[in-house]
């Protein structure tokens, strides 16, 4: 019978993990873990539930960083008024995970640790240049999210002895925006055909730097670096954005999935989504109070905002 513990501190969690090294697994919302256990994909001797640890349940929106505890659910993220305003892309990405009932249990950190190439949380975290704080008995370090993903379903973290305590991403000091685009075969309860997240930082009229994340176009959540470099220092004209979108497309290597989409269709979508995401992120950077994008840049695949 698989053991179950719900500690109330990180230290306690680590101690539990080390009572039987390598045999325990951490659990957040459990929405991925429980089906894996049931199917026998994972068979730990015991589970350590992180959701009762108070310091993992907080959301802190500071001047330079947003810090989110590992037990914070997508539901909490999408309903946080400050985040809705400062980083609307986060609420949009949170909304596209499953549906309400899943969002009230699933966590952003859990989504990352699963390391799936199109995980909504992973794509967004990559674009926001997030980092995760990894706590083990020996040390506590911050790791760039980009370095977590090794292969589909495989992260560089060892959940039998490392606790990801929180995630943080920077709030740029300059005008900036982030946007989220997704195409799926349905609006909810669907895995993405392509998802795309973009961050841009502006300096006067120019794009100072951009981050473009895409999935599933590679074995890991993917950054289109060539496209990013193309944008650096440029005025956001049609041609510049178009070229960046094309560069993102040529760097992508999506695969055929008989149940979701073909490689060809995914390739076709990429420039459209990247272009739209860039457009929205730039609009956001240039006019932070703006809301309605629908007329200029319609995207019916998103739920309407409140």
């Amino acid at each position, binding site marked *: *019978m*698989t053991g*179950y513990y*719900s500690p109330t501190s990180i230290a306690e969690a680590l101690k539990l993990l080390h009572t039987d090294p390598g045999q325990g697994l951490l*659990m957040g919302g*459990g*929405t991925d873990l*429980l*089906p894996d*256990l*049931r199917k026998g994909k994972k068979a730990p001797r015991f*589970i350590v*539930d992180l*959701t009762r640890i108070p310091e993992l349940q907080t959301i802190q929106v500071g001047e330079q960083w947003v810090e989110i505890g590992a037990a914070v659910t997508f*539901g909490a993220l999408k309903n946080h008024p400050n985040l809705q305003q400062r980083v609307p892309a986060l609420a949009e990405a949170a*909304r596209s995970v*499953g*549906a*309400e*009932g*899943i969002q*009230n*249990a699933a966590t952003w950190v859990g989504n990352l640790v699963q390391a799936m190439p199109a995980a909504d949380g992973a794509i967004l975290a990559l674009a926001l240049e997030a980092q995760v704080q990894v706590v083990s008995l020996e040390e506590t370090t911050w790791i760039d999210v980009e370095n977590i993903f090794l292969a589909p379903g495989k992260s560089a973290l060892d959940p039998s002895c490392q606790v990801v305590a929180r995630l943080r991403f920077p709030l740029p000091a300059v005008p900036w925006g982030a946007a989220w685009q997704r*195409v799926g*075969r*349905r*609006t*909810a*309860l*669907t895995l993405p*055909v392509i998802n795309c997240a973009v961050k841009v930082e502006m300096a006067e009229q120019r794009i100072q730097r951009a981050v473009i994340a895409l999935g599933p176009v590679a074995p890991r959540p993917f950054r289109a670096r060539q496209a990013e470099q193309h944008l650096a220092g440029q005025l*956001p*004209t*049609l041609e510049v*954005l*178009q070229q960046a*979108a094309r560069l993102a497309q040529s760097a992508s290597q999506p695969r055929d999935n*008989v*149940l979701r*989409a*073909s490689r060809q*269709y995914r390739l*076709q*979508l990429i*420039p*459209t*989504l990247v*272009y*739209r995401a860039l*457009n929205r992120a*730039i609009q956001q950077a240039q006019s932070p109070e703006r809301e309605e994008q629908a*007329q*200029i840049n*319609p*995207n*019916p*695949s998103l*739920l*309407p905002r*409140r």
Partner: protein
Amino acid sequence: MPVEFSLNHQSVTSTSPPLTPLLDVLRNEFQLTGVKQGCDHEGECGACTVLLDGKPVRSCLTPLGSVAGRQVLTIEGLGSPDNLHLLQAAFIETGAVQCGFCTPGMLLAAKALLDRTPNPQRAEIVEALEGNLCRCTGYSRIIQAVQLASYRMRHGIDDQSPVENPPPPAGEPASHSPLGGSALREDALAKVTGQALYAEDIHLPGMLHMKTLRSPQHHARLLSLDTAAAQAMPGVVRVFTSADIPGVNGFPIYSLDEPLLTAPGNTLRMLGAPIALVVAESPEQAQAALEAIRLELEILPHTFDMDEALKPGAYPIAGENNLLSEFRIKHGNLQAALAESQAIIETCYETSFLEHTALEREALVGCIDEAGRITVTGGSHQPHNQQRYIAEALNIPLEQVRVITPPTGGSFGGKQDPWTFVAVGLAVYWLRQPVRLVFTRRESFDASPKRHPYRVKTRLGVTGDGRLTGVQVRIDSNTGGYDSSGRHIPNYALTAAGGAYRWQAVDGLARSILTNGPKAGQYRGFGTAQSTFALECTLDETIQHLGLDAVEFRLRNCLRDGETSFLGYPLVDSLGYAEVLETIAPHHRRFQEEVEAFNRQAAVQGSSLRRGVGLAGMWYRFGKAGSLKIEAHSELSLDGSFVMYCSAPDYGQGTTTAMSQIAAQELGVSRQRVEIVNADTGRTPNSDIQGASRAIFFVGGAVRQAAHNLVQAILGVAAEMLDSPAAELHLDDRQGVICDALGRSVSLLEVAQEFERLGKSRRMVGFFDVTHALPTHPKPEYLPLFVTGAQLAEAQVDLHTGEARVLRAVAVHDIGKIVNPLDAAGQVEGAFVMGLGAALMEEYLPGASSEISNYLLPTAGCSPPIEVYFVEVHSRLHPYGVKGLGEAAMLPSTPAIINAVSRAIGGRLRAIPATPERILAAAALAGRQPEWNGAVQR
């Protein structure tokens, strides 16, 4: 370690292991069966939704340990029958409860929404409910119910009892008045409070659990089978193979050559073909034993492809060279007709396998009842047929078998399959103990019947002024590995292939072809939806080609009452198609104008969105091949109330309610005074199959007659008691008495007692017989009764991603006299969304599709506002003038949507589902996409 938490405001302790899903703890440990299981603990359907600290969660994915010290609310904690929550009352009033299986989850999700957002926008309601799947209602009425409850909450209206005839939603005409005075569902109260007991909720002492060993291959020969190791496993009571079947191994009338359990030496023709049954003390033990059964299989070549299966030299699956059946229709001179045509349109349309995906999986309980009968309780379309199949398989008399129909969570044809009933009957026959069988959702996907994929080649001729001349249709349907009544499909396919139109010549051939795909069988529409799709889309292509109007064209060609149809015999009843088309015409014009304006604007702005309007009509032969003479019974109870006995199984479409209304109407009493006993072979007569939308017409006709006969008998006895002429008596429902012209009265209770004293039976039989209406020369195979309808869809497509949405719809149907306006509209709305699923997202891929996460059903977010209108062109054959609806309602939906999407992109989709990928490809082919980058950036 025990886990303490608050359950429905009470502190409780659970001793289940902490990783046990909360769903199982609630259902098994606390016996709260209101929370439902719809999938395999994967969080895919929302039926298991409960509130955790006020927020909706999937209880199937919530480990018990995580709820320690927290608050759990289930449907049982929301309200009770005499203390309903506003939401529960609203759900009943708007007709938001059909099969009821999704209802508890929906109610709780809605409660959580209203608690945090008392005045939600429609989009917020949709977002809150989008994770809860419903297959019956199409979500419209559920959304309306939430709006109604919100309104009442904000205005302090504390009305807890459902109100008849709430104000109609905006845009809909005032309600037709329901027969029997009330349209509220009989069973809605039990469903909104979580008290309705579906088969999986029934617990019998000593109940055992059955699991099925199924073929892991698409095509194989079963060489040998060794069950010894399985028999020896812990908790295993018995393992059954084909050798244990005393009578017929199968149900040949229903499905040719389909065994209950395949015998060694024979072939397994599809993935999931059944081999053995294991009965054990727990489902886990049965499952473990399955894995211990040793199989020797010879793997054979397999194909899912019809052309492959028919090739000369193809590996034989069954039938005549893998052809199961064919049907032909030929009238007139096609060559001559086509020669007269200005244009000849040729198309090829294709559809995919579809899965019913009722929210309730297949679930049955068998036992020996107090009369010693093998009794099987489970949802189906025809308990008397199931009774017969069980008796034949067990080689016992019919009287020793009883089949009861419990509240059922949807069927759509899937639960017509006899296999589950015979399997449970077999186990009870041998073990004489209660046995439960519940399919996993995976099993339902692998092994339950599917909708036939069609390939329809049409060649039609039309004159320059838009008159149809002749049509040639060639239909190939993929019936999968077993018959499952697929041999009848060609007849149905061709019946719909010509529609309610006038043709000079018709040449049709339809074939049912065996492959190693999943067995295709009964599915809403039974083969008519696919050929209607091909016809109505081909007509749209014709209309576009000629530059004509979609409604005008159909009116010019539509059949009128009394005409002879392309099937070769005259219409025996009113058709109503012209009335339907005339009613939808103004809506069609309105949609077109608005869409044209939008598209002009979108082009100017450089938007990639385009809209299109699609129209489709249909005709549907209802009533099917069942008996033309149907029986029902009525009874005056000793306490003066009434009971009706009939067999019209209710799996969510509302037949029980309809019978209650008809009985109340005819008896002249309120529905509270009438009890309906439905679909129990031990108590009700055989009213033949509930399928082909025949219940209201046939069974309703018999119920009416039985009620009428009872009234006559009662008045006769009362007349004697009062010494007054029967013609001068009337029934006062409020007092429960029969009065004469002089004001003297006698109570129904007294009348009942008088029946007893006289030795007269208080139970009457009523027949409804339309045998005389069947044409004799020529004599068709089925009674030619038809309903017609038309639907409009407005679709919006993003020409750069291919994503499509249906923004709104209008449906117009002729169903004769409406019995229940709420339910009729609810059926149309649900059918539209089911048709939307087929049009845009549903696709069962053999060998790949396995669960709800990879078989996409429409969610609340896919469901558009739908306006529903009925034209009541009464049936001449029926005393009330009713016709039929349930299946027919879905026929125009898919073609209307595909026509809309096609017009939006300026191209054509000819295969469904029209996924975004396929739409994008068609749009690219049509060459009308704007510059991919959208608007110009400054």
